[in-house]
C-alpha cells in the first residue's frame, strides 16, 4: 500500500555542507577575559585612545551584569573565561593590500562556500566584505564605491581612517550598557563591517558581508555599523557559516543601523551557522543584538532574516522609529530542526508621529526544535497615528517540536492602531497527498509547502539570496519529518 506521511520518515538527513575547517596559522589570544586582554586587542588593532576607553567602560559595565534568563532557550552555562576573544589568520606583515596578498587558503575557503572574492568572478553588483574568525580579510569593489563617496570597509579600517564617523555613531543605537551580550561585544569586538553612504547617494550594488568562524574555542564578536545619510539608500546582505565542531561556540555580534532623514536601509541575513548534530552536540550560540534607528523624517529600515543555523538563536532585530513618518519592517523565517532552539523576533518602538511598522514572522519547527517568536510593539505617548501590523505564523513538522508566540503590545497613544495575528498549523496529510497524487515526491512536496509558507518573507530578499534561502530551507528540513 502506498503511503503519504510515512514516506517522510525515510527522508534522509543531509549533513551540514559548510562544516569543514581551514588549516591556517592563526594569531589567537589565550582564552580568558580581563582588562589586559582588552588592551591587547585594542593594541593589536592599533586603535586610538577613545576606542580603548570605550571598550574598557563596556567591560567594566559588563562585569556588573548577569546573563539574561528570560528567553525560551535552555543551555548549559557559558564559561566566558574559556573563550578566546581574538583570533586572526596570521598576516604576513601588514594586512593585505589587495586580494592578491590574501592567503590563498582563505580565498579557497570562500570559494568552497560559494563566495568567490575575486572581483572578476563575482556576481555582478555585489560587493563583499569577508570576515574570517574575528577579522575582515577582504573587501571587494572598494574603489568603485569610493568614487561615489560610499565607504565600505572593515571596522578596523574605519576606526583608523574615519574615526570621526565611528566616534559619532558607534554605540549611538546600541549603547555599551544595552544588554549582557552587547556589552561583552562592545568590550572585545575585533572587527566587522562599516558602511557609510553619503547624502543623496543610492548605493548601486548590494553590499555583503560573509562571516565565517573557523578557529576552535573562539568567540566571534563582530560589530557592524551602517550609516545612511540623508536621502541615501543601501541594501546590505549578511551570510554566516562555521565549521562542524563538537563543542559550542559563541557568536555575539552587534549591528547598528542609522538612517537619517529620507534614508533607507535594507538589511538581509541568511544565517546558516553550524546548528549542531542530531543529538544536539556542538553548534553556534548566536546571541546577537541588531537594532536600527530611523533618525529622521521618512527614514525606513527593513530587516529580513532567514535563520536556519545555530544551536541557539537569540536575536531581535529592532527599529527605533524616531523620525515622523518613519517606517520599520521585520520579515523573518526561522527554522529549527533536531535540537535547535530559536527565540527571535523584533522590537518596534514608535516614537515619532505617523510611524509605521510591519512584522511578518514565519517559524518552522521540526524534529525536537523549539521556536519562539518574541516581539514588542511599543507606541509611546507622542507617536500620533502610529500603525503596526503583525502576523506570526508557526508551522509544526513532527510531534516533538514546539512553537511559541510571545508578543508584547504596549500602547500609550489613543490614535495608534496595532494589530497582531498569529496562527499555528501543521502540513496537512491532505496537502501532501494532493501533491503526491500529482507525481511530486513527499520530500519535494514538504519543501514546496514550506517554501509557500515562507513566501511573504522570501519576496523581500534580493533575488540571489531568495534562491539561496529556499535551497537552505530544503536542506535544513531534510531528515526532519516523521
Amino acid at each position, binding site marked *: 500500500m502506498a503511503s503519504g506521511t510515512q514516506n517522510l520518515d525515510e527522508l534522509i538527513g543531509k549533513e551540514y555542507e559548510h562544516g569543514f575547517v581551514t588549516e591556517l596559522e592563526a594569531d589567537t589570544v589565550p582564552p580568558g577575559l580581563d582588562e589586559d586582554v582588552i588592551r591587547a586587542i585594542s593594541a593589536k588593532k592599533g586603535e586610538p585612545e577613545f576606542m580603548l576607553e570605550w571598550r574598557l567602560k563596556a567591560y567594566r559595565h559588563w562585569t556588573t551584569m548577569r546573563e539574561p534568563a*528570560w528567553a*525560551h532557550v535552555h543551555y548549559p552555562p557559558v564559561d566566558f573565561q574559556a573563550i578566546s576573544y581574538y583570533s586572526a589568520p596570521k598576516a604576513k606583515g601588514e594586512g593585505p593590500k589587495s586580494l592578491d596578498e590574501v592567503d590563498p587558503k582563505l580565498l579557497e575557503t570562500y570559494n568552497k562556500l560559494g563566495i568567490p572574492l575575486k572581483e572578476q568572478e563575482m556576481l555582478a553588483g555585489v560587493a563583499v566584505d569577508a570576515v574570517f574568525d574575528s577579522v575582515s580579510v577582504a573587501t571587494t569593489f572598494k574603489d568603485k564605491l569610493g568614487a561615489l563617496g560610499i565607504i565600505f570597509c572593515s571596522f578596523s579600517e574605519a576606526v583608523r581612517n574615519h574615526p570621526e564617523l565611528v566616534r559619532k555613531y558607534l554605540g549611538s543605537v546600541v549603547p555599551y550598557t544595552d544588554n549582557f551580550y552587547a556589552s561583552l561585544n562592545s568590550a572585545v569586538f575585533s572587527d566587522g563591517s562599516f558602511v557609510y553612504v553619503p547624502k543623496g547617494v543610492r548605493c548601486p550594488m548590494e553590499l555583503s558581508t560573509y562571516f565565517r568562524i573557523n578557529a576552535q574555542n573562539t568567540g566571534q564578536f563582530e560589530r557592524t555599523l551602517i550609516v545612511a545619510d540623508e536621502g541615501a539608500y543601501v541594501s546590505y546582505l549578511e551570510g554566516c557559516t562555521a565549521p562542524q565542531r563538537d563543542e559550542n561556540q559563541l557568536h555575539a555580534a552587534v549591528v547598528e543601523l542609522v538612517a537619517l532623514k529620507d534614508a533607507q536601509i535594507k538589511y538581509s541575513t541568511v544565517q546558516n551557522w553550524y546548528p549542531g548534530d542530531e543529538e544536539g552536540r556542538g553548534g553556534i550560540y548566536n546571541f546577537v543584538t541588531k537594532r536600527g534607528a530611523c533618525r529622521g523624517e521618512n527614514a525606513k529600515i527593513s530587516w529580513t532574516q532567514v535563520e536556519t543555523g545555530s544551536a541557539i538563536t537569540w536575536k531581535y532585530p529592532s527599529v527605533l522609529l524616531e523620525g515622523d513618518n518613519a517606517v520599520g519592517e521585520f520579515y523573518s523565517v526561522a527554522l529549527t530542526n533536531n535540537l535547535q532552539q530559536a527565540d527571535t523576533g523584533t522590537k518596534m518602538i514608535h516614537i515619532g508621529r505617523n510611524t509605521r511598522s510591519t512584522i511578518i514572522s514565519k517559524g518552522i519547527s521540526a524534529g525536537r526544535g523549539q521556536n519562539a517568536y518574541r516581539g514588542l510593539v511599543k*507606541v509611546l505617548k507622542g507617536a500620533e497615528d502610529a500603525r503596526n501590523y503583525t502576523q506570526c505564523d*508557526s508551522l*509544526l*513538522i*513532527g*510531534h*516533538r*517540536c*514546539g*512553537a*511559541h*508566540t*510571545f*508578543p*508584547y*503590545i*504596549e*500602547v*500609550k*497613544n*489613543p*490614535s*495608534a*492602531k*496595532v*494589530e*497582531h*495575528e*498569529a*496562527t*499555528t*498549523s*501543521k502540513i496537512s496529510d491532505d496537502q501532501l497527498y494532493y501533491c503526491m497524487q500529482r507525481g511530486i515526491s513527499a520530500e519535494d512536496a514538504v519543501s514546496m509547502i514550506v517554501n509557500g509558507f515562507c513566501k511573504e518573507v522570501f519576496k523581500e530578499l534580493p533575488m540571489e539570496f531568495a534562491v539561496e534561502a529556499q535551497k537552505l530551507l530544503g536542506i535544513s528540513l531534510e531528515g526532519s519529518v516523521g
Partner: protein
Amino acid sequence: MEAAAEIKDHYRSDFERLRDGLPGGRIPWMKRRREAALARFAAQGFPTVRDEAWKYTDTGVIARRTFTTASPPARAALARGDLAAFTIPGLDCHRLVFVDGRIAPELCDLDALPAGAAVGGLAAALEGDAAGVEKLLGRLADDDGNGFAALNTAFMTDGVCLRLADGVALERPVHVLHLSTADTDGTAVHPRNLVALGRGSRAVLIETYAGLREAAGLTNVQSEVLLGEGAELEHYKLQQESAKTFHIADTGVHVPAGARYRAHGIDAGGRLVRNGVRVRIDGAGAECELNGLYVLAGRQHVDNHTVIDHLKPDGVSREFFKGVLEGHARSVFSGKVIVHPDAQHTDARQTNHNLLLSENAEADTRPQLEIYADDVKCAHGATVGQLDPDALYYLQSRAIDEDAARSLLIYAFANDVIGRLSLEPVRSYLERTLTERLLHGRRVEDLI
C-alpha cells in the same frame, strides 16, 4: 521577593489577633495550612513588576500599605433592603450574601435546593463537614504562585461553597454577593470560594463584588473550581467595587474529560484589579471559554491574566476579552495557552481587542502561545485601536450626531462580550449598567 520586615510583622500580628476566630480555628489541618501559608507569604512577599507575570501591574500601592482583615461585625450591618442595588432584576436564583468576608445568613435565600446540592458558606461547611472540605480545599489554590494567594489561605474567612453530587442539575443560578461596608481605608477581606461539581452535574454561579462606600480596601479572593467528568459550570464574576478598592482575584479550574467551564468576567469598578484565571484542560474533549469585558476610566487599572494548560487531547479553549479605556485608565491582558506534548487536536483561540479613547489611556496586551504538539489549531489575535472612522461617518451621514454615534459604536463594541452570556436577566442588567456608563444615561433605542 521576601516581604519587608514591617509587612511581615504586620500580617503576623493581624493573624495572631484573629487566629482563633477564623473558620476552622479548631481543626488541626486548617491551622497547619494557615500557618504554612503565612510563612510562604513572608518568604514571597507581594509580587513585583520584575515577575514576568506581574510585569505590567505594580502592586507597590498594596505592598506599601498595611491592610487589616475585617473583624466579624457585631450586628447585622445590612438589611434586606440594602441588597436591591446589587441584585439582578428578573433573575430567579438562590442567593448567598457575604458582608465583609462573612456570611450574613439573614440575607441569604437558599430554598428549594435539589437533593445532592450543598450550597452555603465555606465556614459553615468546615464546621459541618471538615473531612469533606479537606479533600477539596487547596487543591487548585495558587499558594506557591504568589503572595496574595498565600495571604488568602492564611486569612480566608468565608465564601461560597457549592458542591453537587453526580448528575445533579442545579436549575436556578446561585447569585453570590460579596459586599464590603468599610468606610475607612485599609480594610482587607479574603473571600475563599470552593466549587466542586460531581460527574455530569450542572450549575450556574454568579458572583458580584461590590462595596457600599468608597474606601481604599483590599479584596483578595481565591477561588477553586473542581469539575467532575462531563460537568458544566457557567461562572459570572461581576466586579463593581468602589473606584478606590484594590481587587485581586485568582481562580484555579480543573476541567476533566467532557466537562465544560464557561466564565465571564465583567470589570467596571476597582482602582487596581487583577483577575488571574488558571485552567487545566485535563481530559479528552474538555472545553473552556473565558470571556472578559472591562470598561475603565479615571485611574483604573485592570489586569486579566489567564493561563490555560491543555494537558490532554481534543480540548477546546476560547478566550475573548474586550476593553474600553478612557481617562488615565490602563488595561493589561496576558493570556497564555500551553499545549502540552500529549494534547493533540487541541483547538485554542485567544482574542483581545482594546478601544483607547483618551490621550492618557494605555493598553498592554500579551496573547501567548506555547505549543508542544503538532496536530493543533491555535491562533490568537490582538488589537489596540480606536473607533472605526468609516462607521462613525456612516452613522453621522444617517443624521446621528457625533457624540451619539461614538457612544453607539462603543456600546456595540462592548456588547459583543455581553452577547455571549447565557442568562438573559444578567445580559439586560449589564446592558443597562453599560449604557449608563457609556451612553451617559441615554437609551440605545433613543439613539437609533
